């Protein structure tokens, strides 16, 4: 019945309980992880930049969208002159202007080719029957999908979906699989100028859609481009600047606290874009506060992959992200690229799916949840069944008694001995994590995370010890006492409220740490499952929702249950 409860919750999603939990918990996880993003990677930030057409740009150019091709060519030439690593143009030029020809871009393509700079032009979203771009842009087109409904960013598209059209020339049989903007740029660099930096690059390692991790810090060069003085949050925007309150662990706690209580929805809680972002009108100007004669800001683009697109207020080219809010899609592509540079093929991704035939496929995360759910609920049912005094003694009762005695024995040891287990666990995780960091610039804050994990586990141990100590004399007192009601009996086997809550918190913290280090699935996927387990706690309550629900479904088999478990009437009240 509990398994059925899980299936209803997971797959039928009544009142969007599962999806709503995912969305709100995604905000919380973004808040606590974002302050750490990129701080341990020497390559993050340095390889990406965004050039935008924004409101001040239009004002300075005395222009409106769509920009003329002449203007676009002028800007792209400015970008190419700065010797970027690659360029992605996030303007979909599917149709030609009436008074201009796309052939104007040929000079840009020629210049990029002569400088060995990969350049791509957005074709639009894959799967939306987007037409190909017109020549000469046809051969440099790339998809520009934003996030899917699962919040994942697709990197590669299945060949079936992105099948070559009938009118495609036959020589394109040798074409690489269709890719999204960030991956097309990454792939082109890793197979050419960056081949030494990407390690061994295998395209198949990137088939799973990416769960983009966001950072809160700006590129240090951003201060040359714009002022950071407009938001209190931006005081901490430059990495490793500011005081104690700007340390990533402190930010993680404060932002996590706000997100936990939903107060992050304020308009004021703004954060700057992670990648270096320059307005197109600023490319020919020198930086803020730089002395006369300094090079123009375009020189900051040298060696970076440049994503060029729009950041216009209220335009339909943005994505709403948990906790961070609206982000222009050109920044989204740039951030996905930064994730690839930072994590390589160990990027955060959607769990793979297992195909069961007949079009049925279930994600590995669901399978993993199901197994854990079976274990938890099986344990609950086992405890509940063998707790009844009239259940015949046998292997099960003995096993339950042994487990209980061993756990009590463990909890009755001194606290310092108990604390050794979480201490060793946390130390092992910290050692693994820190030894895999390319740089230990943020090592202190990373290490403090594991200290926090240890404290959470220690707190849970203390509560469990108190709970065990409290139930021991009660059990002895009632061992030969009068017959207890089923509800009283069940109540006795519940942990105290705080112990139960602490156990859940510990479980969340452990799974979070293991997921961040090894599995790298979206954190929000399993938080609903943890919360569902909270409901299991009340399954022993005679008036609880779970038991009522189960009893309702179980009414038909009531007679059979009565035969196996005497006095079951009282439990179904």
């Amino acid at each position, binding site marked *: 019945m509990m398994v059925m409860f899980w299936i209803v919750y997971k797959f039928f999603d009544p009142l969007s309980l599962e999806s709503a939990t995912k969305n709100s918990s995604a905000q919380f996880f973004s808040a606590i992880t974002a302050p750490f993003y990129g701080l341990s990677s020497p390559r993050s930030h340095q390889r990406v930049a965004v050039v935008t057409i924004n409101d001040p740009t239009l004002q*300075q150019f005395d222009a409106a969208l769509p920009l003329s091709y002449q203007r676009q060519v002028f800007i792209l030439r400015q970008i190419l002159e700065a010797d970027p690593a690659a360029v992605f143009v996030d303007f979909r030029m599917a149709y030609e202007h009436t008074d201009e020809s796309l052939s104007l871009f040929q000079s840009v393509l020629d210049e990029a080719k002569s400088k060995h700079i990969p350049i791509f032009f957005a074709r639009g979203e894959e799967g939306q029957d987007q037409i190909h771009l017109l020549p000469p842009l046809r051969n440099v087109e790339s998809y520009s999908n934003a996030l899917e409904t699962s919040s994942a960013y697709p990197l590669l598209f299945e060949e079936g979906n992105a099948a070559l059209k009938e009118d495609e020339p036959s020589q394109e049989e040798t074409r690489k699989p269709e890719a999204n903007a960030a991956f097309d740029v990454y792939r082109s660099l890793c197979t050419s100028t960056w081949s030494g930096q990407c390690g061994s690059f295998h395209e198949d390692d990137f088939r799973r859609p990416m769960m983009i991790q966001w950072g809160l810090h700006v590129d240090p060069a951003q201060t040359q481009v714009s002022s950071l003085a407009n938001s209190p949050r931006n005081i901490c925007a430059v990495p490793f600047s500011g005081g104690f309150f700007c340390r990533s662990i402190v930010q993680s706690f404060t932002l996590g606290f706000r997100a936990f209580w939903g107060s992050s*929805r304020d308009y004021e809680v703004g954060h700057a874009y992670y990648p270096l972002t320059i307005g197109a009108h600023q490319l020919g100007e020198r930086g803020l506060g730089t002395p006369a004669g300094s090079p123009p800001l375009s020189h900051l683009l040298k060696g970076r992959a440049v994503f060029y697109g729009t950041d216009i207020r209220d335009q339909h080219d943005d994505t709403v992200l948990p906790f961070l809010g609206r*982000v222009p899609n050109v920044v989204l592509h740039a951030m996905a690229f930064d994730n690839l540079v930072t994590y390589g093929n160990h990027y955060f991704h959607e769990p793979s799916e297992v195909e069961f035939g007949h079009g049925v496929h279930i994600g590995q995360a669901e399978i993993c949840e199901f197994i854990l759910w079976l274990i938890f609920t099986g344990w609950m049912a086992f405890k509940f069944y063998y707790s009844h005094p009239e259940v015949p003694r046998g292997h099960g009762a003995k096993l339950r008694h042994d487990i209980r005695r061993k756990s009590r024995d463990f909890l009755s040891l001194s606290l310092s001995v108990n604390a050794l287990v979480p201490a060793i666990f946390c130390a092992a995780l910290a050692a693994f994590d820190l030894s895999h960091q390319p740089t230990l610039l943020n090592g202190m804050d990373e290490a403090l995370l594991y200290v926090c994990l240890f404290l959470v586990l220690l707190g849970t141990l203390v509560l469990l010890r108190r709970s065990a100590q409290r139930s021991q004399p009660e059990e002895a007192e009632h061992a030969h006492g009068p017959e207890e009601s089923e509800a009283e009996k069940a109540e006795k086997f519940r942990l105290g409220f705080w112990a139960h809550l602490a156990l859940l918190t510990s479980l969340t913290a452990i799974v979070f740490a293991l997921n961040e280090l090894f599995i790298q699935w979206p954190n929000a996927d399993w938080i609903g499952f943890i919360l569902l387990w909270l409901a299991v706690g009340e399954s022993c309550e005679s008036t609880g929702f779970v038991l009522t629900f189960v009893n309702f479904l179980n009414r038909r088999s009531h007679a059979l249950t009565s035969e196996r478990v005497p006095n079951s009437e009282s439990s179904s009240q």
Partner: protein
Amino acid sequence: MKKILSLGLLCTTILLSQAQAASTPTVSGVFEKTVHAFAENHAPLGQIPASDLLNQPVAGIDEETGFLKVQTPKGLVLVARAAVTTTMTAAAPRETSCSYIGTLAASGTGSSSGFASNCKAGAR
């Protein structure tokens, strides 16, 4: 003799004016079909055709707005510097104007950021 002197003077005048014309920067290109123009006193003149500006001499730069002064057949007009290209010798890059960094609007209903220009007074 007088005739020879007059001819020499005429030639010199022509050569000098040619040299001056060559050194005077002109508008070499325009990105859009029309350009917003302003009078010398900054009064808006509406949009003028790009053809009115092409190859016209640049008379200087308006100190107050940074706009280009272009001498057109219809008179002197001010246009945005980035709206046209000129034959002027490339000057050293000027300092970018102070703009606030774009911040992400946390609310899903808020608009996206963009750079917000015009930092508060005193912060350039």
